[in-house]
């Protein structure tokens, strides 16, 4: 299985400002001084191999959308935030306009997780088939409501793909598109659902928009089981721990510190920080990643958890 991140930002899409672009350019030019980068090849090699990630890249600004590339022919996504637009366009450009089968697992129906669907071009093209799965009873209503006046000029009925909605029950196993899928209810305004997705012994847990109450031992144990031995845990780390349990308590998000602890307890192989705080720039997220890796290192016992920070375009092979 291969996991590809199309949207990783929390709450609202963001874009780099001119000032941020300029800061990166200045940092790159200063680092390149005296290096004799007089060809595009040399410059590219320098950018790819020597510049810090936060200078040479951006974590990106699309809201939640993750693709699971499985052994099968179907396309599998988690959430339809603004990253779904980029995924849809890329797919049409590389694989043609129709004949696609999509399975989408929705964490919840807040705007930042559904806003990509009106711009998801495969949904407008006949010959495609989209099944949207979720645990909320307002699943279909939420999608239809955003695709009609006065919120959007093109009505849902103008989408020519076959689109269906399927309600799932949490804590129950389903076999969908060759995957074993189980949803779990999470603490978030109006509830959200995490997904444990397995195929051929590989396990991905998609757990965004989830606040973990660490003082409730039963809840901690239940989530540790949900994360148990996962090859990858995609984890909402929008806030610092101090914020998450003080001024932002009950806002429905978690922290890098809790992500490390849960993955250590569950003996997960990889933790991927996700749903980045929209006010954080690239330097701040890069620092958060470095600190999280350090935390994992100084608190490690007999099990190592590999720590990543998701960015738009990141691909992880499991």
């Amino acid at each position: 299985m291969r996991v590809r991140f199309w949207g990783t930002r929390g709450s609202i899409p963001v874009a780099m400002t001119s000032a941020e672009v300029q800061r990166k350019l200045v940092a790159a030019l200063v680092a390149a001084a005296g290096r004799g980068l007089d060809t595009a090849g040399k410059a590219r090699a320098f950018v790819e191999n020597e510049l810090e990630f936060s200078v040479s890249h951006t974590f990106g600004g699309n809201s939640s959308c993750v693709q699971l590339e499985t052994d099968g022919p179907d396309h599998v996504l988690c959430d339809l935030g603004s990253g779904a637009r980029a995924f849809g366009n890329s797919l049409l450009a590389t694989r043609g306009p129709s004949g696609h089968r999509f399975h989408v697992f929705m964490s919840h129906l807040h705007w930042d997780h559904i806003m990509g669907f009106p711009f998801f071009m495969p949904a407008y093209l006949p010959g495609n088939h989209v099944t949207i799965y979720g645990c909320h009873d307002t699943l279909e209503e939420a999608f239809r409501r955003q695709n009609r006046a006065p919120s959007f000029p093109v009505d849902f009925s103008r989408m020519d793909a076959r689109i269906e909605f399927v309600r799932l029950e949490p804590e129950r196993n389903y076999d969908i598109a060759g995957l074993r899928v189980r949803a779990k209810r999470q603490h978030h305004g109006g509830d959200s659902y995490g997904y444990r997705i397995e195929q051929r012994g590989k396990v991905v847990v998609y757990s965004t928009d989830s606040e973990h109450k660490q003082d409730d031992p039963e809840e901690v144990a239940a989530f540790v089981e949900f994360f148990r031995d996962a090859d990858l845990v995609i984890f909402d780390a929008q806030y610092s721990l101090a914020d998450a349990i003080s001024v932002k308590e009950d806002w429905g998000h978690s922290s890098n510190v809790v992500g490390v602890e849960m993955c250590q307890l569950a003996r997960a192989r990889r933790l991927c920080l996700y749903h980045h705080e929209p006010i954080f720039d690239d330097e701040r997220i890069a620092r958060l990643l470095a600190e999280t890796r350090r935390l994992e290192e100084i608190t490690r016992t007999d099990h190592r958890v590999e720590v990543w920070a998701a960015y738009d375009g990141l691909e992880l092979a499991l």
Partner: protein
Amino acid sequence: MELAAKRFADTVALYPTGRIDHATADSFKAALAPYLAVVAAGRDRAVIDLAGVEYISSVGLRVLMLASKQVKAQGGALAVADLQPVVREIFEISRFNLVLEVFPTLREALAKLSPAALAAFEAA
């Protein structure tokens, strides 16, 4: 997890030892409770000396957050001091150094909280 206490004039210094994690946070919270109950404006102050704590998890940090909130609500003062290097890093990464008063040493905490306590500490 053990908790010892020592009084310096109007300030009580609390000395937990061991790991404060999912297994011990509840007993840490219970052990702190009687000392926190009497911390208030014009009365006791409290400093938690973490020199003997080798690790603190999120649930342990939450106990400190609740202690700080309780003491503030009572009009009192609470600080932590003397963090081991690993615990100091955990404070920094979790940003708890921004929401709790953290001092390098117990002496510096006492100096900030109470001249009488500092004098008692120096005389001890």
